[in-house]
Every structure is written in structure tokens, then in C-alpha cells.
């Protein structure tokens, strides 16, 4: 975006057309990969779309996955808005899951409405600390946030493996996972709530966290565009020297943004651990933190964009597993390929189409109306 000059692209092209173009190219290349596997890309897309949206059941699964991606997308985006690239959402979510698990395991006798806030606070505290430390190291010690968060992902993985193998493991179990939580500590799934209201919803792990994700998106928008604090955070991200002149401390907002980022990432644990598995599993984060990067970039760090991008990736995850079932030549890893391509085209190559698009709009404007 041209700062201090005329906007060279209309907003709808900047926020709609450009990301769409990048997405189309990413999917075209993914289609070429499918061709190389000896399958028909159109047929594969058909399976994918039907696998993601074709029935109430698969749609529930799509929304379940999308919930994770809303959380990590918002997490990566709030750091981006403060000018920081947080690669550590994966580790922050993992450590957040530890906080949540401690509450659910050891306070499982309490009623659900007491456990839920306690578990959420614990997840937030753990995840926020895991995000805050790299933020503090960046702001106060100048360590590069990218490298630090990569290292923190590995450190988190080591800590969690240790705890799951030696400390939290279910007694007598050979696989590294905790005991199943008491049912008081299970997040109600939507079909259970539906049954209470007399509705017949498909049995999928989609749970209350989904609504929490929507609320978080709203809060994200309110915070960034309607509060003074959010404004200060954005100023720091845009131009930290201007921030200093305006009396805003970049260091302070970098640390806060990273803590918020870690807190948002930790909500994955609500959806996955409390809402679906009901116990802590090794690697329960399953790379969702990295998907958040693609979601934030594709959604241009805007709450509406993030919702749409999260839905897209939720559909890719759910539709991808159905596709792998229908076309055994295409494994679930194809989703990871698409994810990489989206980050490449919507992120690294975001300037790829911009010059030609701008030239196109200039020419249109030059023509007499």
C-alpha cells in the first residue's frame, strides 16, 4: 500500500482480487502436481469439495478444523500487525495445551462451568508466557524473533515429550498420552447440545470452541480497529520510529503482541484437547500453528480474511482426507503442498501480480469515461 501517496489499487482489488489471483495460481500449480501423480485434477477437486461440504457430517468436521485455523491465523496475524513474524504458534499452542491439561486432569472433579474458565486461563497463561519470552528477547535483547520462535518450538517439543513420557503418562500406558479427563472437563460437542434441544446433528467433534473462535475474531477486530491500544500496536508494526516520536513504546507493544499471539494459539487446546481427544496427546498440535501462517497471509491479517482463509484450510484438511480415501494416489500430504504454495504465492510472491494489476488499473483510469 502506498503510504503518503494515492492508493494505486482500489481496495476491492487490493483485498479481494489480488489474494484471489494468488490463490488461483497456487491451486493451478497444485493441479499440476495432481496431474503428475496421474490423476485428473478436476475430478480430485470434485472429491475434495464434496468431502468438505457434501453432507452435514463432513461440514461439521470442516468447521472443527477451521476452528483451529481461526485461532492460529489470528495468533500469527496479531504478531504480524505489530511487525513480528511469529513462527512459534505451534510451540505456544503445545505449551498452552499443557496448562489446560493440568487443570483438566487434577481439578476434573469440579463442575464444568468452573473448569472451563480455569482451563482457559491456564492455557492462556502458559501459551502467553511461551510467546512473551521470544517477544521480550526481541524487544529488549534484539534477538531475532524468527530464530527464537523456531528454537522455542523445539524446546517446547522436548519439554512435552519429556513430560508425556515420564511424568503425565497414564499409569500403565505404553503410549505417551495422559489419562482421559473426567467427563466434567469435556467441552460439549455441538451434537450433544443439539440433542438436548431435540435436534439431530451429526456426531463430529465440532464443539463450543467454534463459537469462541468467532468471538475471538470479533474481539480481534474490535481491539485493533476500535481501541487506542490496538492503534498503538498497529503504529508499532507499520513504523516503529514514528511510534517512538508519537510517544508509543515499540518494545512494550512487541511484547504484548507476542503474549496475545501465544494466548490465541493456545486456544487450539480448547478445541483439540478439551473438545475432541479429552486427553493430552503427543504432537496434538499437528502442524496447525504453521497453517496459521498461511491463513494470516491469505487473509491479509484482516479478521474477515482470516475467517475465510481458515474455512478454506478447514475444507482442505477435511476434504483432503476424503480425497485420499477416494484417490489413493493422492495422500493427505497434498494439503501440506497446497499450504506451502499458498504461503509462497500469497506471502512471498505477493508482489508478483501487483505491478501488472496496477498498470491495468492505471490504463483503465487514463481512458476517458
Amino acid at each position, binding site marked *: 500500500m502506498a503510504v503518503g501517496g494515492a492508493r494505486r489499487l482500489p481496495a476491492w482489488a487490493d483485498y479481494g482480487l489480488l489474494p484471489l489471483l494468488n490463490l488461483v495460481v497456487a491451486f493451478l500449480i497444485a493441479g499440476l502436481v495432481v496431474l503428475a501423480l496421474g490423476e485428473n485434477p478436476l475430478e480430485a477437486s470434485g472429491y475434495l469439495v464434496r468431502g468438505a461440504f457434501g453432507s452435514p457430517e463432513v461440514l461439521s468436521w470442516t468447521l472443527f478444523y477451521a476452528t483451529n485455523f481461526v485461532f492460529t491465523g489470528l495468533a500469527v496475524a496479531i504478531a504480524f500487525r505489530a511487525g513480528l513474524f511469529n513462527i512459534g504458534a505451534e510451540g505456544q499452542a503445545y505449551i498452552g495445551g499443557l496448562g489446560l491439561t493440568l487443570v483438566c486432569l487434577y481439578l476434573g472433579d469440579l463442575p464444568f462451568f468452573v473448569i472451563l474458565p480455569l482451563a482457559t486461563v491456564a492455557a492462556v497463561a502458559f501459551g502467553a508466557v511461551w510467546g512473551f519470552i521470544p517477544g521480550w528477547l526481541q524487544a529488549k535483547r534484539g534477538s*531475532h524473533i524468527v530464530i*527464537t520462535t523456531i528454537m522455542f518450538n523445539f524446546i517446547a517439543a522436548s519439554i512435552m515429550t*519429556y513430560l508425556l513420557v515420564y511424568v503425565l503418562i497414564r499409569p500403565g500406558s505404553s503410549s505417551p498420552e495422559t489419562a482421559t479427563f473426567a467427563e466434567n472437563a469435556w467441552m460439549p460437542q455441538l451434537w450433544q447440545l443439539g440433542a438436548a434441544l431435540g435436534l439431530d446433528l451429526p456426531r463430529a467433534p465440532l464443539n463450543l470452541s467454534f463459537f469462541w473462535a468467532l468471538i475471538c475474531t470479533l474481539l480481534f477486530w474490535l481491539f485493533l480497529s476500535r481501541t487506542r491500544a490496538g492503534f498503538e500496536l498497529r503504529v508499532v508494526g507499520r513504523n516503529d520510529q514514528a511510534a517512538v516520536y508519537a510517544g508509543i513504546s515499540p518494545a512494550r507493544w512487541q511484547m504484548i503482541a507476542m503474549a496475545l499471539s501465544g494466548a490465541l494459539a493456545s486456544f487450539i487446546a480448547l478445541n483439540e484437547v478439551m473438545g475432541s481427544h479429552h486427553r493430552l496427546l503427543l504432537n496434538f498440535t499437528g502442524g496447525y500453528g504453521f497453517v496459521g501462517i498461511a491463513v494470516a497471509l491469505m487473509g491479509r491479517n484482516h479478521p474477515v480474511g482470516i475467517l475465510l482463509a481458515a474455512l478454506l484450510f478447514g475444507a482442505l484438511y477435511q476434504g483432503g482426507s476424503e480425497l485420499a480415501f477416494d484417490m489413493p494416489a493422492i495422500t493427505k500430504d497434498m494439503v501440506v503442498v497446497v*499450504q506451502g504454495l499458498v504461503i509462497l504465492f500469497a506471502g*512471498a*510472491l505477493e508482489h508478483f501480480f501487483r505491478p501488472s494489476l496496477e498498470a491495468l488499473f492505471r490504463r483503465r483510469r487514463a481512458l476517458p469515461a
Partner: protein
Amino acid sequence: MSDLWLPTLLLLDSTIRLAAPLILAALAGLFCERAGIVNIALEGKLLGGAFAAAAAAQLTGSAWIGLLAAMAFGWGLAMVHGFATITHRGDQVVSGMALNILVAGLGPVLANAWFQQAGRIPVTAEDARFPSLTLPFAEAARSVPIIGQIYAELLSGHNLLVYLAFLAVPLTFWVIWKTRFGLRLRAVGENPAAVDTAGISVPWMRYRALMVSGALCGIGGAYLSIAQNAGYLRDMSAGKGYLALAALIFGKWRPVPTLLACLLFAFTDALQIRLQGLPVAGIGEIPTQFVQAIPYVVTVILLAGFVGRAVAPKAIGVPYMKDR
């Protein structure tokens, strides 16, 4: 003494084996970061190299063709990185992350379709893998205490690519510090505008740095799949590319300190493997996860400036624009 001597020797021996891919990837990182390009794609290039080497070696039965394929694939990934970050001035970290994720997905997808082994590529033929080399007189030297044993156990018997990795260190030192290419490369990373003023193309210098880096990473990947192991497995680079990046920072972007950092990280890895399930006198069983985490913790502490200071090339991560 003697019952400690041999295990120590074996520990150091496996340190050398584990250090080889780290060294190759770290030197690859050195070339492009010295030229001002952040390369967190080392991980993806290693993994891509491992995939390409295994696929080509298994199909042709030749380890050398496997190595060439790995270098070509690493080179190709580096060119994509260059196209996004040099030509189109995209974010270098985002581009690197995109490549890492892309390769992590592409490898298993293609391997599954081409070899039908659930995303693995086994390399079966003898000639499709690089053999270990026995240095001359190694067997005869074994009977000589200490020096002979060091020669026979520690220095001899490694894979060809291990020797190549260690040779690459003095070679890199020479190229970076003693040649005109190296001088220009460093200048591009510190002050690209000055290089531009001297009539040297900044993008072309950076592209060339990436080419070297991609090929070196490819060799590291080939080592993983057709020298150290017999085939490609998903995510087999297992963070080695990131570890190499950490070693590069730890080594302050200099070849010899970087080598030492790689050896240190490889040693903690070797120690961790050795300690698995082994009670240590007085302490009991040490959880290997803690030993495993040492390189990462060390890097964080170093980056925070608590122990020495790691100063990166000045222009690192900044796309060069002529008209600024």
C-alpha cells in the same frame, strides 16, 4: 582409562558422522546469509535433497546420479527463493517457510505415487549408496595405541560425503575470505549500495550465492538418504536445517567457528543417543529430551547476547532496491 577410551572414541566417531549434514547446511546458509539473504529454507532444501537423491539413486542405481539430482533440486529450490525474494522483493522468511512446508508435503506425495511405499523411498542397490572409505593402513594402524586407534576409528571409515563436508570448510573459508567473488559476496551482504556503485549487479551476486547454497544443501540431503541411511523417510531432516542455522549464528557467520558449533551440536546429539536408557552414576537416568534441547537453548541464550554477541551481516533480510 582403557574402558573409557574406546567409548569416547566411538562417541566422537558418531559425532563426526552426525555433524556432516549440519556442516553442509550451515555452509550453505553462510553463503547466502553473507550475501544478505535470510535462509530458513535450509531445512526444506536438506529434505528436498534427501528426497531427490533417494528417488534418482533408486531409479538409476547410481549414487552419483542421486547426488547430482539432490544438488539440482536444492539449486532449483534456491532459485524459487531467489525469484521470490530477489526479483520480486518478497519477504525472505515467508518465502523460506513456504519452501520448507512445500517440500515437507511434496516429498511424501511424490514418493507415495512413484514408489508405493507409504511415502518412503527405500534405496536398495549397493551402488545406489555412497560407501564408507577405509583410509590407507587403517587396519594396520589399529594395533598402535592411541594415535593408531584415533586414525583407524575416528578418521578412517567414514562416508565419502563426510570427508567432502569437512573439506568444504577450508574451501568455503578460502572462497569467502580470499577470492574476489567472496569479497563481493560479503560486500553485498553488508552494503549492497556500495557494490552497486562499483558496477556489480547486486541481484546477480545474490542469485549466485543462492546457487552455491542450494547445491551444498543438496549434498547434505543426499548424505541423509543415500549415505547415512538407506532411503528417504518423511521429515527425515528432523530440524537439522534449523539446527544448522543456529550453528551458523553461533559461529557468527564464520566458517571455522561454524564448524565448531556444528561439531558441538552433533556431539550433544551423539551423547543423547548414547545416553538413551543408560543410567549415569550418581544421577540416574538422564532424560534424553533435555540433552536434545541443549543446542536450541544455547542458541537462544547466545542470540540474547548473554554469552558473546552474534552480529549478523548488516543488509541481511533487506531486499535491494536500486532506486532508493
